[in-house]
């Protein structure tokens, strides 16, 4: 049986690296996770045996590549619980997926229409909406963050109005780890007649998903944060919504028939996939979701919750450490953001790197959230299937030594 934690580590070749004289402790999976041998081998095997362009190559390799690419779509559909394969559009990543939606929906906005984001969004779920609003004279509003780092749902209810066209929110905050009440967000947004996009970049890698039940109109995520390759991401869209959207990017593959002055769009999902797609990325992503599927996402989530709880507990005991985000691991994703008194986060990360410990430091592409807390940045430890309690202990020991280290 596949294992999380210590039992999975042999699958990840990079974890045997020694960094600055110490065994690598990789606590930056929220930025990008490491890859198991199964993913690396799937990509290598694809390039060594089956590579060709997809869909229109009538030869053996072309057919194999097409089968692998479309098979990846089926695997992803099953993994996220979408109803149909036409609801799974491959993109280069979360950012591209959000931009795609913001452009397609954005061109239907009218002056005075409103889009609601939240104060805890990653820039990639904020800037595309700023751009759409700026282009169309629409108004951008933000749900404030309150307390340890929760969305102010009463304020959200007040912000919703008949003018609200889109609500764009993180499933899980990449800084605070807050798991937002997405079912409630979807319900209230739909009651107001708005579309909902959920940024699942920190959700899909860590939590079991049933997107059909969740009800969001769009759910987006990246392969590289969930053990897959870079350059592949997913836009899940409800079929009935995708069918109403005009594509904004043209090219090969997204058309059915073309004349010199007009064209007929292809069916879903290819309508939104112009050009040669990231085939190897999709193949690798399939291997990644199959790997996660064997572990079981309930087990992955429980393992990461345990590490998060241990980390919160250990860091809270260290003098001069401030933790950001919910303290309750039951309602938190696998990230812990913190600062050490008198130490800039970048200096903290550089000093931890001397112990072979990789953490993220800075504003985490969430500057409005940093402004909310009145800080320039934080350190952030984040976990994946391969991390262990012993690594959390090593982190805590190293953080204890950080105070006064400069």
């Amino acid at each position, binding site marked *: 049986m596949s294992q999380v934690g210590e039992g999975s580590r042999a699958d990840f070749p990079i974890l045997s690296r020694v960094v600055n004289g110490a065994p690598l402790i990789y606590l930056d999976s929220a930025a990008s996770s490491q890859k198991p041998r199964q993913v690396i081998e799937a990509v290598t095997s694809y390039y060594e045996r089956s590579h060709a362009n997809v869909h229109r190559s009538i030869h053996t390799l072309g057919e194999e590549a097409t089968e692998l690419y479309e098979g990846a779509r089926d695997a992803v559909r099953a993994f996220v619980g979408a109803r149909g394969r036409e609801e799974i559009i491959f993109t280069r990543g979360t950012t591209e997926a959000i931009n795609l939606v913001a452009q397609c929906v954005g061109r239907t906005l009218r002056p005075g229409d409103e889009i609601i984001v939240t104060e805890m969004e990653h820039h990639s779920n904020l800037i595309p909406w700023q751009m759409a609003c700026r282009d169309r004279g629409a108004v951008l509003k933000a749900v404030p963050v309150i307390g340890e780092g929760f969305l102010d749902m009463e304020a959200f209810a007040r912000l919703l109005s008949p003018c609200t066209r889109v609500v764009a929110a993180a499933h899980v905050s990449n800084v605070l780890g807050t798991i937002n009440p997405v079912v409630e967000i979807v319900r209230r947004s739909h009651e107001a007649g708005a579309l909902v996009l959920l940024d699942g970049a920190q959700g899909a890698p860590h939590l079991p998903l049933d997107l059909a039940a969740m009800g969001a109109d769009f759910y987006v995520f990246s392969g590289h944060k969930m053990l897959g390759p870079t350059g592949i991401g997913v836009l899940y869209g409800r079929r009935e919504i995708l069918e109403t959207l005009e594509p904004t990017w043209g090219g090969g593959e997204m058309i059915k028939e073309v004349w010199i002055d007009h064209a007929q769009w292809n069916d879903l999902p290819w309508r939104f996939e112009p050009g040669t797609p990231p085939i190897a990325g999709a193949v690798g992503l399939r291997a990644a979701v199959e790997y996660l599927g064997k572990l079981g996402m309930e087990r992955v989530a429980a393992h990461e919750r345990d590490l998060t709880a241990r980390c919160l507990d250990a860091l809270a005991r260290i003098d001069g450490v401030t933790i950001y985000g919910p303290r309750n691991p039951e309602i938190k994703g696998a990230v812990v953001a913190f600062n050490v008194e008198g130490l*800039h*986060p*970048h*200096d903290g990360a550089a000093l931890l790197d001397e112990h072979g410990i990789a953490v993220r*430091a*800075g*504003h985490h592409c969430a500057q409005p959230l940093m402004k909310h807390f009145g800080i*320039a*940045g934080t350190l952030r430890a984040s976990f994946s299937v391969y991390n262990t309690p012993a690594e959390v202990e090593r982190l805590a020991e190293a953080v204890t030594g950080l105070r006064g280290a*400069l």
Partner: protein
Amino acid sequence: MAYSDLIRERFRHPRYRGSLERPDAAFEDVNPLCGDRIRIECRVEDGRLADARHHGDSCAICVASADVLLERAIGEPVELASRLTTADLLERLEADVRASRLRCVSLPLTVLQSALDGKEVAR
């Protein structure tokens, strides 16, 4: 080794941190990589950088870099102060700074140059 003794010393006890009462020139900027912010205020007399101070919210490398920069630049003609380079600062910092942190070294340099060029702070 990113943190030389000199960087540690200047981070703990910067000699030119602070503000000037009536600066002739000032500029501040942000390192988009990490959100670090640094402001440099200058007094210029007879074409020379008569005095300058830095403050802000930034890492040890950036603070130390600003400090050795002002130490080197104060008293010099404005044209020379504006022509100092990242290499000059690295030498003074006695540090082998990684590529990912070079902007921490160069940010005070571009802020000083912008202040002396009379640029407005972008809002």
